């Protein structure tokens, strides 16, 4: 079953193209990587899916819905920048998510917090960057969403935290949903991916199942990434 369908999606910022004729189809039950260097259009594509920006051309649907408030109910988004209010405690953040997202699973959130070694009385203001990343990941993964969109979840966190974050993604992965994740750290993320899209200068230059890409090219995904984007 197709969860996300992007048909000839283009996005321009004034005259500068960020994405050109991007065709992506994401199926249920897979973890898919959107890989590319800085400025390749990864974040723009994720913002399109989550309704933060609008396409200049093309069609984009999530579970058959055009992007709008209905699709937002189906998509759990982890942005690449901090977005929680400093005055919030972790409990406040949980309450906000529980209030606004009907699919928020409070029990799973508590489990994830324990897994991430965080407690509900902690203040967002007092958390380190890595802890904030873990918190927003826990909030995102605690939803029973159809599509999880994770923008650079490993950015700026130490290797131990990276392992925890990858562990949490695998732990919460549900075969009825789909995970779309971007990262520069191909080595770290390669092991959890089923499929990969390589995005270069706003265009998809390579796509396939990770096992196929490896066997066809006799290279690891990391080596292939270096070859494509060198």
């Amino acid at each position, binding site marked *: 079953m197709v969860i996300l369908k992007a048909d000839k999606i283009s996005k321009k910022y004034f005259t500068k193209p960020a994405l050109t004729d991007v065709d992506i189809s994401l199926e249920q039950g897979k973890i898919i990587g959107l890989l590319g260097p800085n400025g390749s259009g990864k974040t723009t594509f994720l913002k399109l899916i*989550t*309704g933060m920006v*609008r396409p200049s051309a093309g069609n984009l649907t999530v579970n058959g819905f055009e992007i709008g408030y209905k699709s*937002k109910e189906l998509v759990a*988004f982890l942005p690449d920048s901090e*977005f929680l*209010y400093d005055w919030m405690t972790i409990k406040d953040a949980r309450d*906000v998510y529980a*209030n*606004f997202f009907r699919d928020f699973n409070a029990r799973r959130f508590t489990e994830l917090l324990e897994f991430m070694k965080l407690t509900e009385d902690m203040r967002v203001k007092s958390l380190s960057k890595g802890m904030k990343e873990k918190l927003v990941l826990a909030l995102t993964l605690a939803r029973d969403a159809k599509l999880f969109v994770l923008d650079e979840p490993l950015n700026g966190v130490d290797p131990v935290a990276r392992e925890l974050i990858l562990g949490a993604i695998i732990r919460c992965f549900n075969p009825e949903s789909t995970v779309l994740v971007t990262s520069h750290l191909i080595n770290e993320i390669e092991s959890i991916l089923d499929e990969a899209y390589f995005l270069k200068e706003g265009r998809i230059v390579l796509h396939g199942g990770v096992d196929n890409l490896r066997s066809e090219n006799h290279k690891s995904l990391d080596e292939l990434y270096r070859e494509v984007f060198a």
Partner: protein
Amino acid sequence: MIGKLIYFEIMKKWRSAKYLLLGYLGIQALNLLITRIFLWNNKIGDAFIHSGTAPNNAGLPFILTTILFFILAIFLGAFPFIEGIYRFERDLSGRQSYLELMIPAVSWKKVLAKLAATLSSLIVCGTVSLFSMFMYVMANFNAQAIEFIGDIIEALSHDWFKVILVVLYMLFSCAASFMIIFFCITIAKSFTHKNRIAVPIGIAAFLIITGCTAALGIQLDKIPLMKFSLWEIETSLSRTLADIIVFLAAIAGTNWLMEKRIEH
């Protein structure tokens, strides 16, 4: 959903303003105490007359404390207005706008929730501000001033229906003003998030819209449908209907821009 949105907006305002409100109450209590010490025997005139032997001669400190008291009270009354505009702008383009845009609700509900929270904040801060001024007058001025306030309250109490109408009219006027400002901010943000460009666009939009509504009001006053007055407020049914239409148009315009044009 709208109830949850209003709760969230009020919580945001409370969390950001609670220390300011507590600080205000603390400073004003101190101000009140200082002025009471200067005017222990309730003779305000003694504060300004230097007799050489008068124990309650306050002079400059009393004036400064009084000025500070009223400046703070006015600031508190104006705070929800400033904060409401700032918060709306930040919610559209600030760090937390991701969370705002992520919430699965139609934009007009989000806008109405922000408006309701801003009006609530205006009512709370306005009441505290007026009450503190009342307290000051009660504590420091002579019986005539207190009697005068008492007379006003008594006059008002004869016609509660009119009082309610006037309060509703004033609240609606505030809501309409806020809504036009929100609309102008949204127009500006739909062009760019860079404040260097967005602020002049917003101000220009505000001037154009207020100019147009004022011109419309003048034209409507020439052919009033049904004239009436709420105390000193002279208005007509046609003018009131026009105000309601402008208010609804501002909500619809803000909703459309947020749904179709605003980007993160």
